[in-house]
């Protein structure tokens, strides 16, 4: 099948379909590596994970073993985890602190900023051997935005801020909730799903499945009560799905379930009320009523194309998807919290996270199940299409509509054809001729 024909995007008739080979084909998987993961900015980690000089973290990013380390001069450096000498992995733990890095094969030693500083038997090398040519290698591009570090294996990629396009403002909405900045707390949730990685990107933005799939969660929360007193939400629009450019998308919701930052819910307990009111006043004072409302009362599931999600609802989860095969992905989730929170405030937030999120939560296991179920189902229906057209002809699609998922797929489709941009979104006519 031609790449061009993998998606039917008929914006006049409101039909959007994705051919299921997009989730099963090895050829397409290899092509994604080349045209998406080797060309875009890909999330690596958060600056707070390496707080002190010498702190390092090991990661696999788009199939490549990397690590990042805070060097002695305080900078965050990213290196390919492969010895310049003969290739062994220099960093052999997932996390730690190091004054220098020594390869265990022939004991070459590197500084935290990557210079080769020790070669046993140096004199046995000839005069043309230069230590300066054998430092640890960095990915072609490394940039950060507000503490989030990204790498790109494409030397010509646009700068990160330009790449983030409309997603930047949503990242700001998350980070600005904190008074003293955000940090990732210790502990990560790492699991795998036997399904195509794009199914999780889609699922993380899918408001349509919430009630049917996550009924036990919804029942549990409503059993704990809701707080509609002085409801500021009644007059508000019920949320929206948006495409933010470059494939980034968001599903933005008003949040009746409470938000640990500044929307109270009975599950947080009476004693949390004064603190939450205080934080809300601070947000209003600093950002004005409207933006404070968005921080406090709205939730967002933000996809930073292609494979990073910032899930800002019951708490803030950074969810990274690492594709392994057409039918297999690794998922890692971290918990992002405001630095100023400790004690009861932090406990409330940690507790809130675990209700929904994580492989032991009341919802995530069901998502794992549903994605694997789809992937298995594809074997029966390999030549079929998945429909993603909900709300396509609406003027203002909500979160249960699928505009945000179409935004993702359009970018994917453009990239897979070697184009850098999808040429049209919902509401822009055409697309029927294919």
């Amino acid at each position, binding site marked *: 099948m031609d790449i061009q024909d993998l998606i039917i995007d008929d914006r006049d008739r409101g039909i959007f379909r994705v051919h299921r080979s997009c989730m099963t084909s090895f050829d397409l998987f290899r092509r994604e590596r080349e045209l998406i993961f080797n060309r875009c900015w890909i999330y690596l980690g958060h600056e707070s994970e390496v707080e002190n000089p010498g702190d390092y973290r090991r990661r696999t990013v788009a199939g490549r073993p990397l690590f990042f380390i805070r060097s002695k001069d305080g900078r965050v450096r990213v290196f390919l985890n492969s010895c310049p000498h003969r290739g062994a992995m220099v960093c052999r733990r997932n996390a730690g602190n190091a004054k220098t890095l020594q390869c265990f094969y022939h004991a070459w030693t590197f500084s935290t900023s990557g210079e080769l500083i020790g070669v046993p038997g140096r004199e046995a090398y000839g005069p043309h051997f230069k230590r300066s040519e054998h430092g640890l290698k960095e990915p072609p591009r490394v940039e950060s935005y507000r503490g989030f570090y990204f790498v790109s294996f494409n030397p010509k990629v646009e700068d990160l801020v330009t790449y983030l396009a409309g997603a930047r403002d949503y990242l700001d909405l998350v980070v600005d909730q904190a008074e003293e900045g955000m940090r990732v707390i210790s*502990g990560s949730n790492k699991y795998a799903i036997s399904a195509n990685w794009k199914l999780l990107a889609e699922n993380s933005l899918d408001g349509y499945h919430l009630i049917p799939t996550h009924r036990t969660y919804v029942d549990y929360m409503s059993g704990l009560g809701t707080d509609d007193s002085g409801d500021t939400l009644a007059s508000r629009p019920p949320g929206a799905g948006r495409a933010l450019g470059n494939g980034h998308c968001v599903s933005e919701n008003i949040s009746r379930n409470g938000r640990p930052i500044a929307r109270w819910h009975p599950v947080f307990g009476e004693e949390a009320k004064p603190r939450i009111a205080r934080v809300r006043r601070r947000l209003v004072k600093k950002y004005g009523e409207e933006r404070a409302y968005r921080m406090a009362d709205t939730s967002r599931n933000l996809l930073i194309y292609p494979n990073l999600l910032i899930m800002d609802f019951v708490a803030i989860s950074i969810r990274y998807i690492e594709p392994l095969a057409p039918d297999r992905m*690794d998922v890692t989730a971290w918990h992002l919290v405001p630095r100023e929170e400790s004690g009861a405030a932090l406990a409330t937030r940690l507790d809130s996270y675990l209700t929904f999120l994580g492989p032991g939560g009341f919802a995530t*296991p069901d998502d794992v199940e549903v994605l694997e179920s789809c992937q298995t189902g594809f074997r029966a229906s390999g030549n079929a299409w998945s429909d993603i057209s909900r709300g396509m002809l609406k003027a203002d699609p909500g979160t249960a509509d699928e505009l945000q998922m179409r935004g993702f797929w359009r970018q994917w489709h453009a990239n897979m054809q070697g184009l850098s941009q999808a040429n049209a979104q919902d509401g822009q006519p055409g697309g029927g001729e294919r």
Partner: protein
Amino acid sequence: MTDNDRFALRASVEEFLFREAVLLDDWRLEEWVDLFTDDARYVVPSTDLPEGDPTRDLVFINDDIVRLRARAARLNSRHSHRENPRSRTRRFVSNVRVEETDDGQLSVSANVLVYRFRSGEGAPYVGTIDYILRRDGGDLRIAYRRAVLDLEDLSRHGAVSIIF
């Protein structure tokens, strides 16, 4: 405490743990929750931070009795999709260590292996479970249950969808 007292104490704790294992394998989850005290906690730390503290760190599970009851109800519901249809599990509990604490509670550790079979897959959850057990008349109750997985991650399982 004489050796005989110690053996007797360990035997009674083992009996309690075996009973717990049967309740879980038989999916008698409400009865299982009834083993807990009202102020109990059930904690499963993240695989990359076995020493994780749920008041500070990200863990998989940190239930008080309210959420534990809700967890049991959820697992009994047909809307708990990862466990509907239910998996088959078989638990092996061994290497039980018992210490009496100063306040008369029992600090217990056991090695636990739970095989889980479902949808053509079978993979074990392996680890240790630490308990604080409290005497309640002639019986024991669980005041604290911390299940620490030895797995490096949940790549074989995708979730902690059963009680480990």
